[in-house]
């Protein structure tokens, strides 16, 4: 017996390692980052030949994982929910080609938006792609189910989507692991009729995908992740994924005698759902995320007594918890003392001494000379520049959108059109937008806040920083004299104001790279070096 105290994310990582993966592909994103980090550390400590470096974005990650699967080996690909939007093209089409070596996509959703811009539910993508989806409810289940998912993937010759949410990813529990399975041998598949998705092949493959759907249901029917827990109450619960935990906790805490159907493997196991409905007069649908299956179970014309997020029995948005389940059953939840009125919010902030602070200070001074002060920005620590005292940025939508939105606004006649984007976000999906601007000779100024790392998610390696960013911008066609570098430090304030002022005034494509290492990252490096001696 091998027991470890692991985060949910780490349990996935260990499950994948023990299932014999040859590679993990990922772009950092809360709450998924720790999966890949665990594998990186494990590979380093064990000198194990598992490929684990960060990818430039989720699409490149997914495609590389598909390529490894094509070559016969097992691969894991990890991302946060919005990352699946970026990888969606590859993800959906991998269902049409199918896989060779086992391929599991672990996607961490973020209901309540702790660190995200929406709470989209990845199970919808699973249905959309017609792929099997698993949604374990505990750290141990994550380990066991991840291991099995690779067998399932190889047996169905389809990628498997593993969905989890923030709480499970970032909560620790003791996980017992099983012996490691060896990696697959190199065994590339020669099957152009599957992998060349020209229409004549794609049509056949799509028919095939539809024809195997009953096999997916067979898996669900027999899956240990779907279990019916008996009870005598007239109200039953279908509890999906982590919602099961809250239902069981409420059952104990509030003495609820309700039958519970736990769902952790999709498509829905029809017989088990029918069995639950046969036992009860009403059914509460408890889903963490969108009311995806509540809608399906209600159907267009309704009929059955179904409670859930859509009728307000459970909150329409945000995470569930034990208390929301208890309230759904009409139980009174005893709160402790109320939060005193003097307690103010404590939002996150840029670290003291962070280079982004000096960048925003200089930028605000330059922008104050214009009537129209719009700064398009992006996703990273620098997004905190939207908050006081800086209020320096005015948009943050999706990875890379700062550059393209600035371009569109410039096309509409806005001047100046300024974008602020981090080094890693730039290589993730900013470069193509810059190419558009260059090709169109759009008057935009792109400020790359280069802190040498993916800082917000905890300091992962960035795909390109420093002089490589200059080379990339040059290669994309930005004029050399309009690629400027500054050092965001207080002592450089005057100089930085001058450079930013000149380039923002310039009516063409200009890039200002503000280069200074993330303080947290520098401190981390120092600690690691100290630990190694």
């Amino acid at each position: 017996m091998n027991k470890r105290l692991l985060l949910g994310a780490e349990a996935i990582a260990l499950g994948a390692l023990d299932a014999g993966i040859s590679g993990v592909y990922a772009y950092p994103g809360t709450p998924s980052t720790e999966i890949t980090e665990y594998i990186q550390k494990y590979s380093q400590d064990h000198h194990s030949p598992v490929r684990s470096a960060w990818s430039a974005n989720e699409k490149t990650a997914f495609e590389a994982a598909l390529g490894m699967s094509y070559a016969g080996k097992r691969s894991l690909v990890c991302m946060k929910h919005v990352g699946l939007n970026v990888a969606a093209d590859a993800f959906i089409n991998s269902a049409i080609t199918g896989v060779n070596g086992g391929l599991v996509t672990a996607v961490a959703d973020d209901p309540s938006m702790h660190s995200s811009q929406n709470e989209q539910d990845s199970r919808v993508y699973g249905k959309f792609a017609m792929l099997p989806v698993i949604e374990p409810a505990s750290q141990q289940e994550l380990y066991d189910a991840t291991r099995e998912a690779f067998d399932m993937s190889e047996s169905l010759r389809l990628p498997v989507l593993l969905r989890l949410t923030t709480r499970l990813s970032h909560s620790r529990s003791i996980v017992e692991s099983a012996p490691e399975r060896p990696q697959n041998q190199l065994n590339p598949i020669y099957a152009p009729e599957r992998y060349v998705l020209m229409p004549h092949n794609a049509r056949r493959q799509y028919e095939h995908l539809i024809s195997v759907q009953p096999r997916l249901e067979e898996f669900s029917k027999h899956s240990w992740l779907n279990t019916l827990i008996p009870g005598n109450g007239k109200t039953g619960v279908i509890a999906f994924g982590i919602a099961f935990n809250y239902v069981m906790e409420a059952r104990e805490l509030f003495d609820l005698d309700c039958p519970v159907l736990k769902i952790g493997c999709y498509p829905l196991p029809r017989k088990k759902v029918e069995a639950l409905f046969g036992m009860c007069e009403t059914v509460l649908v408890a889903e963490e995320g969108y009311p995806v299956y509540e809608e399906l179970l209600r159907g267009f014309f309704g009929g059955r007594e179904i409670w859930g997020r859509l009728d307000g029995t459970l909150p329409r948005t945000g995470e569930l918890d034990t208390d929301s389940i208890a309230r759904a059953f009409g139980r009174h939840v005893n709160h402790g003392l109320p939060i005193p009125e003097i307690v103010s919010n404590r939002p996150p902030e840029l670290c003291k001494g962070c280079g982004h602070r000096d960048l925003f200070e200089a930028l605000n001074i330059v922008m104050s000379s214009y009537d129209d002060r719009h700064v398009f920005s992006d996703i990273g620590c620098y997004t905190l520049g939207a908050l006081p005292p800086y209020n320096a940025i005015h948009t943050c939508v999706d990875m890379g959108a700062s550059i393209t939105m600035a371009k569109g606004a410039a096309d509409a006649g806005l001047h100046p059109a300024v974008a602020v984007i981090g080094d890693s976000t730039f290589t993730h999906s900013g470069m193509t937008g810059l190419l558009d601007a260059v090709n169109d000779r759009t008057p935009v100024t792109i400020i790359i806040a280069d802190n040498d790392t993916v800082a917000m998610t905890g300091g992962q390696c960035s795909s390109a920083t420093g002089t490589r960013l200059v080379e990339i911008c040059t290669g994309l066609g930005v004029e050399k004299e309009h690629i400027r570098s500054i050092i965001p430090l207080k002592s450089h304030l005057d100089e930085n104001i001058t450079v930013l002022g000149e380039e923002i005034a310039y009516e063409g494509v200009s890039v200002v790279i503000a280069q200074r290492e993330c303080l947290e990252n520098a401190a981390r490096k120092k600690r690691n070096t100290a630990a190694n001696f």
Partner: protein
Amino acid sequence: MQLNIILAGVGGQGILTIASVINQAAIHKGLHIRQAEVHGMSQRGGAVQSHLRISARKIYSDLISRGTSHLILSVEPLEALRYLPYLAPGGKVVTATDPVVNITGYPDLEAIFAELHRTDRPLLVSAAEHARQAGNIRTSNMVMLGAAAPFTGMTPEELESGIEKLFHKKGADTIDMNIRAFRKGLELSQQQASDT
């Protein structure tokens, strides 16, 4: 036994080190653990908390229900107040009194203390001062753990061996310093108990 603890603080204060020590002790006793943490954006100087649940039986929820936390252990006084709805009747609040003032309109400290005193015999600890006496201000966490030790379901010995395990790579000096800090906190707690 079943125990719910809310650990509170500001991003970067290291509340997870406290959780790790309690976890070490709980693992040693063969107990079940669930410990929900905050990663990501809030870690940058925002309010952070960890729900730590320890039980002899299987634990389902990673989150503590409102009104069921036996202990709120905070390394910052304002943050202790944020989680009062979670406190069980008769639950204990143990908090450091050293404020982290990184927001405008940080409330008056006396007002914060007055609110804390609405709970049942809260233990307020000048953690930084005691940590300095132990040899390093960075041991504030261990002062707080010591002060909260009687409410963690673990004996001081079990927690001390947890500290040893956690810091064993850092050498004997670091272990000693952290145990000194832990014992300072423990003394304060014992003093409060004997004042009754």
